[in-house]
Structures are given as C-alpha cells and as structure tokens.
C-alpha cells in the first residue's frame, strides 16, 4: 500500500517536469535549479530506473551552471549560490556531467562565508572565525548551507579535505548546549536559543560518521523524541534522514511519510523540493551520502 502512494508521488513529480528536462517548484511555475536537483536526488534514491529523466535533468542543471562552477538560483542573481551543493549531490556518479560536478566541487571548496574575529564583548557565543558556507555569497555561514556542502563533499569523496573538516568544526560549534541546531546561532545575550527539527536533522545527517555519537547524543535524543510529532515534510524528512544516517531510523518512519503525503489533501500540494524529500526519505536506509554514491555507481 505504501509503495502505491510513493509511486503516485513519483508520478506527480513527473508532472512537474519541463520539456527541457528541468523541474518546476510548483505547478505552472518557472524552472528552478533546486527543484531539479532534488528531483534527481529523489529519482536516484528511488532506484534510478527512470534513467532518461535523470539524465535530462542533470543536463538541464549543467546548463544552469556558471563559468566559475556555481549553480545559483537565478543567473541574474549569482550571489544566491546555495543550490551548488545540491547540484553536486545531483551529479554524483554521472559520467556525462563529471566536468560540471568537478567544477561545482571546486567552487564549493573556494567559497566561504564571511568571517570575523570573535571579540570578548560579542553578544553572540558562536565563533564567527570558523569557515563554513553562506546561503548568499558574501554573507555569514549558516547551518543548513554548511551541512549541505559537507554532505556534498562527503558524497563526492572529499570528506578528508580541510574545508570538510572545518565544516564539521563549524557545525559542532553551532550545536546548542541542550542539543539540536537552529539556523545557526546558539547563545545570544546569554540566552540559549531554541532548536529546530529541520536544522537539527540536516546537521546530523551531514555529521554522520564524522564525529563520535557521544558528541551529538543530546541532539539525537531530541530528534528521536520529537520525530513522531512532525508531519511537515521538511522537519519529518530531515529527522528521518538523520536518524537513518545514525542507524536509528524509526520503524514507523515510512508510515509517517505516507501520512505526510496524505495531508496534502488538507494542506495543498507540496512544492517539488518537499515532495522529493519525502520520496528520498522513504527509500534511503542508512546514510543518504552512501545511497547517492551507490546510485551514481549504477550509471
């Protein structure tokens, strides 16, 4: 029964496919690079049987790449370069797009969020001198883009690169004292901020295998205790992907994913990125990085 509903979700995903191979984020909207990258990731983790669609989407994504390797949300606004990490994941293992893949990795390795020296009187407890990745070029590093870049570098076999090691350090610096992550601040003016499930899930998924379990125990406890509560795709899926990466995927995980899909009747249709997260989370067992590596190897 679950399989039929996931098959239906994949059919809906195909309805978001444009003639040129790209995907839209919402029906009747324009081409989006992030939606296209997520569609590739979802179709690849779902078994990769739809090779033509994956190949066409990868080619469309490559057409969006700029000369320096970045894949920005819009060519008219290059600073919005955060989709580059998604593109690296989407091109993983593609022989046809290996040059695009290598160029995107090079861009990631040469891009860094704005840094500053930590001062004793700063109201913010985090260390802003640690290198990570920003959402938007020339702004500060934040948790999600740093975690996605780390995940992309790990998947591409660069987990030993100094930038990947520093990304681990940056994420650990932004872990909240009571566990979990939010967008990227921990303690401001002496008050510990609240954690968010989505940010926590992304950070933990990226850190799998990079730090000892004891170092993230509180964060895993938080997600494990909270995951059952979420049916919004972003929080639910990143919670499941994280727990899966740490070998703790809940038995009911697939049922929760189906419940979330079913809720579209009341909530309205999900954007392509969220739909793809649901599909990928349904199929990924273990570390999503390993799943994508093996999907790529089949090509």
């Amino acid at each position, binding site marked *: 029964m679950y399989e039929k509903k996931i098959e239906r979700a994949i059919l809906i995903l195909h309805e978001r496919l444009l003639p040129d191979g790209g995907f839209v*984020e*919402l029906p009747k*909207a*324009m081409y989006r690079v*992030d939606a296209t990258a997520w569609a590739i990731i979802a179709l690849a983790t779902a078994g990769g049987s739809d090779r033509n669609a994956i190949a066409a989407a990868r080619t469309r994504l490559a057409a969006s790449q700029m000369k320096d390797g970045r894949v920005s*949300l*819009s060519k*008219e*606004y290059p*600073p*919005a370069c*955060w989709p580059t990490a998604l593109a690296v994941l989407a091109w993983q293992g593609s022989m046809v797009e290996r040059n695009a893949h290598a160029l995107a990795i090079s861009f990631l390795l040469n891009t860094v969020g*704005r840094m500053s020296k930590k001062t004793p009187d700063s*109201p913010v407890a985090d260390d802003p001198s640690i290198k990570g990745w*920003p*959402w*938007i070029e*020339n*702004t*500060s590093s*934040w948790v*999600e883009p740093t975690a996605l870049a780390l995940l992309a570098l790990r998947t591409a076999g660069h987990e030993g690169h100094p930038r990947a090691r520093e990304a681990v350090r940056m994420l650990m610096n932004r872990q909240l004292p009571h566990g979990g992550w*939010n*967008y990227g601040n921990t303690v*401001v*003016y*002496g*008050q510990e*901020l*609240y954690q*968010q*499930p*989505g*940010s926590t899930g992304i950070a933990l998924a990226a850190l799998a295998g990079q730090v000892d379990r004891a170092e993230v125990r509180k964060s895993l406890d938080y997600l494990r205790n909270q995951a059952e509560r*979420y*049916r*919004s*795709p*972003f*929080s639910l899926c990143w919670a499941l992907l994280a727990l899966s990466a740490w070998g703790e995927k809940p038995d009911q995980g697939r049922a929760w994913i189906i419940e979330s899909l079913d809720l579209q009747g*009341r*909530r*309205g249709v999900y*954007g392509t990125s969220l739909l793809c997260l649901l599909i990928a989370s349904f199929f990924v067992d273990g570390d999503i990085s390993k799943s994508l590596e093996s999907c790529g190897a089949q090509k």
Partner: protein
Amino acid sequence: MKEREGALNFMNRREFLSAVITGCMGLAAGGAAMLGSGCTVERRTADAFIGKAGGYYADIPSIIGAGLRELGVARQEIEGKRILLKPNLIESRQGAAHITTHPLMIQGAIEAFRKYGAAEIIVAEGPGHCRDTLLVLEETGLIDVLRSERITFTDLNQDSWYTVRNAGGRTKLKQLILPETLKRVDWIVSMPKLKTHHWAGITLSMKNLFGVMPGIFYGWPKNVFHWEGIEKSIFDINVTVGAHFTIVDGIVGMEGDGPIMGKPKQAGVIVMGTNLVAADATCARIMGINPQKVAYLAAAAGRLGPIKESNIFQRGEKIESVRTNFELLQNIKAHRGLRSI
C-alpha cells in the same frame, strides 16, 4: 490588478492633502526621492488608531472595523480588492505564542476585510528563521484558521520572483528581488507583533516587511540585510514594497530579549494605521519607548512619515490610557537609551 513597480505607498489620501496644504507638492509628485527640497516632512501628519482588546477572544473584527472607519478608509478602497495579510511568523515554539502574530488576530482581519467587500484575501509570509514554513503554520495554529476560512497561504520564501529598482537607496543594493505574489494584490497589510528586538530595539510594522523578502535570495536569516545594515534595509524595503496598512497585534506582545527569547507582555491593544511610521511611533510610545531614539524610526522620520507626537492624530484610545512599559535590558546595546521619560 495593480502593477507594483518599486511602489511608494506611504502617503494616503489624507496625507496627500496635508502635504498640499503645507506646500509640499514635490513630495506628492516625486515621493521620497524628492524630499528635502525645503519641505520639512515632519509637518506631514498621519493618523494612528489604538483599540483596546483584553484578550484574543475579544471582538477583534469589530475593533479592526472601527479602526478602518476611524482612519478614514472608505469601503471603496477595499471593495473588490485583493488583500495580502503579512503576519510575523519568524519561527514558532509550542507554548510560546508571544513570538508570532496570533492566528485569531489574523482571523479577525480576514473577517473585517471581508465585511468591507474584499474580493480575495491571501495570507503570506517568508519566515526569517525557520525553513519549515508548514511547521510554523502548524505550531502556531494558523493552519486551522486558514482551513476554516478557506484562505490561501503563500510561502514568500519560495515564491516566484521579480526584480525592481531599490527605491529607497540607503543600502548598496541597486535592485531588490520581490515575490511574485506582491504583483497580484492591491493592498499589503503588515500584521506584526508588538515586540522588543535585540538588534533593532523594537520590531513592528516596518521591520515585519523583512518577511516579504524571499529567503531563497536573502537567506535564513535574511542575512544580506544584516550586512547592509538593519536600519538602512528597513528603509529600502519599506519604500520599495510600500505596504498600505498595518494592524499590530499588541494584545500580548514581547518584552526583554525579543524577538524570540523575551517574555510575554500583556498590553491589550491593537494598533492600526495607513502610515507605518506613524503607527510604529505610536506603538513605541505605548511600550514606553521614545520613537526618536529608535534608529530605524529616526531614519524614516521626515522621509516616510511622522514620528513626532504632535504630528500623529491619535484615534481611538489615548496613548496614556494604554501605555505599559516594556522591559528593556541594559546588556542589550539596541535597548539602551530607548525609554521615554
């Protein structure tokens, strides 16, 4: 449908007349860019309305209706129009309703605008901290209101987009990228929460428009604007977006270390206005804060609207009858020196 190209909607009909009377025709003809040519804009006036509401089960639609009448908003201005309500949904936390605009306040606005004959009402927001907008809708309870009222919600962080010239010109940004939904509406209503803010001093109608700017182009948080300067960014966004109206949820606000970690503060007010600067200045006074000491209001004063008490016609309740000092923290730089005497 109105095309919104770098809109400047800070002057309503009454303010226009006021400007004409005081001889500031350059203001009416050219907007903010033409100010300063001998025209002292602090002579401009605006109205602000204060309504009392003891709690969220008060008759909010009637209070908002009274505010619209007192502020001189004619039925023809709303009838047949598409109204966008923009609440503050920065992030959510179960049991911390004082972070975000209350769903019953939004429901009250929906009802009030429907009574005025609005053709369509859209609720839209691009949360500044939380990437999971659906989670925010669920945790705040807004999703239930949207469903019961059959209202469409648009995630402005993920919307299609268009680019306009930065009509404010205070930051280095030549253009701003706006969500496509803005093109499809006639009226933008800012619906903030009455809160202190540890970077901006306070966060009200004008700062709330940060949430209009798409996260896919400005990040989570919208860090591009932090690097450009919060006060300058508030100015540029407000001039360029040009909201038409504000309804401030001050029934329960936040004091101390806002906009997230502060304490709930019962203020029991709904503040409204067609001029966001004047409405925010009024809110500040209710909070026991001198608006002239708030950097973003001082920067907007004389350009986008009045902040002097003598230039704001107070409708509804008097400020003195509802003033309740919001706690300011001395360790927070942006709070120092804000208190009114």
